């Protein structure tokens, strides 16, 4: 394996501005951190702090930013073949059945039908959708669709897995169980994983490290090491250590979240202020 193919993700002093002049918003402000090979890192922050922006930059979908993102020693300019992305919005193809959605990346690579369906079935089972292979997205619930897109990304077995709030549409139970599955796959494939989330439990349950972001502009507030034993399952949620981590990160996050809420309230108040 060459050095550039090493699944080592570096985010180096990344700054992203939307718009220009006095109207410009800084969405991501000088963020720097890395994700080591096989490591599971979560980025957590309040809504609107710039997480999806960061996600799109790392995925190579958003250009025109300062700083750089590297995979190994290679500076990325556009989507990198060893990165697989799971998007925040619902992204299944409504014109394809579940199996053809999941097999999509293999189809692009010209994998024969029987083989790609075999591999797709494996991942469909893994996300708990056995029996739904022939269904179409319009026949599935929101959470099920999201699991289809997770399976579609996993089927390429990307070395670096990038996920933007993939569990947001799921109920807590499914979220915990699917978290276990993701961890299992991640350990099996030794995937370098970056998870974007605003869910504290999820972040602590899954991560080796958590990057906490501030609200507007999105800066790095703190990086927390999660020293919970591996292999880890969702049962860890009941432990004392888990509770300590959640409390610790919440105290960091609380200030940011409330400044986000205050921001929203003043905007609303300004909008509702009677004229004259």
């Amino acid at each position, binding site marked *: 394996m060459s050095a550039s193919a090493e699944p080592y993700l570096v985010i180096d002093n990344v700054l992203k501005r939307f718009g220009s002049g006095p109207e410009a918003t800084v969405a991501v402000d000088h963020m720097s951190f890395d994700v080591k090979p096989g490591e599971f890192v979560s980025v957590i922050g309040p809504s609107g702090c710039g997480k999806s922006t960061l996600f799109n930059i790392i995925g190579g979908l958003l250009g025109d930013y300062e700083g750089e993102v590297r995979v190994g020693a290679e500076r990325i300019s556009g989507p990198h073949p060893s990165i697989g992305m799971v998007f925040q919005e619902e992204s299944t193809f409504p014109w394809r059945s579940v199996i053809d959605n999941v097999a999509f990346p293999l189809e692009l690579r010209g994998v024969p039908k029987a083989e790609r369906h075999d591999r797709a079935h494996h991942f469909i089972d893994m996300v708990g959708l056995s029996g739904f292979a022939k269904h*179409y997205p319009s026949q599935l619930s929101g959470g099920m669709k999201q699991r289809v897109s997770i399976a579609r990304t996993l089927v390429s077995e990307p070395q670096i897995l990038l996920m933007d709030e993939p569990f947001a549409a799921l109920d807590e139970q499914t979220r915990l169980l699917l978290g276990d599955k993701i961890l299992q796959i991640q350990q099996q494939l030794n995937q370098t994983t970056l998870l974007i989330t605003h869910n504290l439990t999820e972040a602590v349950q899954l991560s080796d490290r958590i990057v906490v972001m501030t609200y507007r502009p999105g800066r790095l507030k703190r990086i927390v090491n999660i020293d919970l034993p591996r292999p880890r399952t969702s049962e860890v949620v009941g432990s004392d250590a888990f509770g300590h981590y959640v409390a610790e990160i919440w105290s960091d996050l609380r200030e940011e979240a409330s400044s986000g809420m205050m921001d929203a309230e003043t905007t609303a108040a300004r909008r509702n202020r009677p004229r004259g």
Partner: protein
Amino acid sequence: MAERTRLRDLAPITVGIASLAAIAVVAELLLLAGVLNRYILPLPSDVLVALVRLVREEDILSRMGLTAFEVLTSGFLVILAGVPLGVLLYRFRLMRAALEDWLGALAAAPIVLAFPLFLVLFGRGPKTIIIISFVYGLAPVVLKTQEGLTATRRVHVNVGRSLNMTPAQMFWKILFPSALPTIFTGIRLSWTFCLVTVVAVEFLVNLGGLGHLINELAERYDMPGAYAAITFVILLSMGFFIVLERIQSWLQPER
């Protein structure tokens, strides 16, 4: 399960036919009671009788065949030319700026009225009818194709980009399938335009097909016959819709 699906498919048709029959019965009663004028609206029962007469005496099947041929020829030409044009319009902003308004105007213009010009250019025959129908039916497919492609969800395009898809793959595997339902809406609109145009021109220039027959019967003051002939036009249009629906659900089931 398959049987249930069949039943579900049949239910709307049954309800449709039943309500049509109910309307016919009501109309019949109102006409008999003298509430409605029998010189404007013939008795539905007379129209029913005339339907049979048309089949026996007016060679309705070959007339329907001719009209169907003209509509299908212009309809498929419209798809063949319209979809690629729509793609070009989507792809090249300059072309869109230059052509979009003209196409809108084309869709709105009463081109049928220019039929004498077309007759002079292309002669008195099916060819002329097909060409007028083509011109009239073109705009909806072009505009809807362009609209459908433009409306492709951004996240779908991003999935494609994250998988490093080639532009050709992006078009055939994401943009086009995503736009297909809208394209079919355009095709349905276009085919309606084509059918109306074909029948209208047949009617105006007394040339072959169902339109010609409607004109003849109307001139003979055979109102039940004229209404019966119009019924055949409606049957034809229903046939087209069913065929299009089939093609669409074959291309994209459960969408």
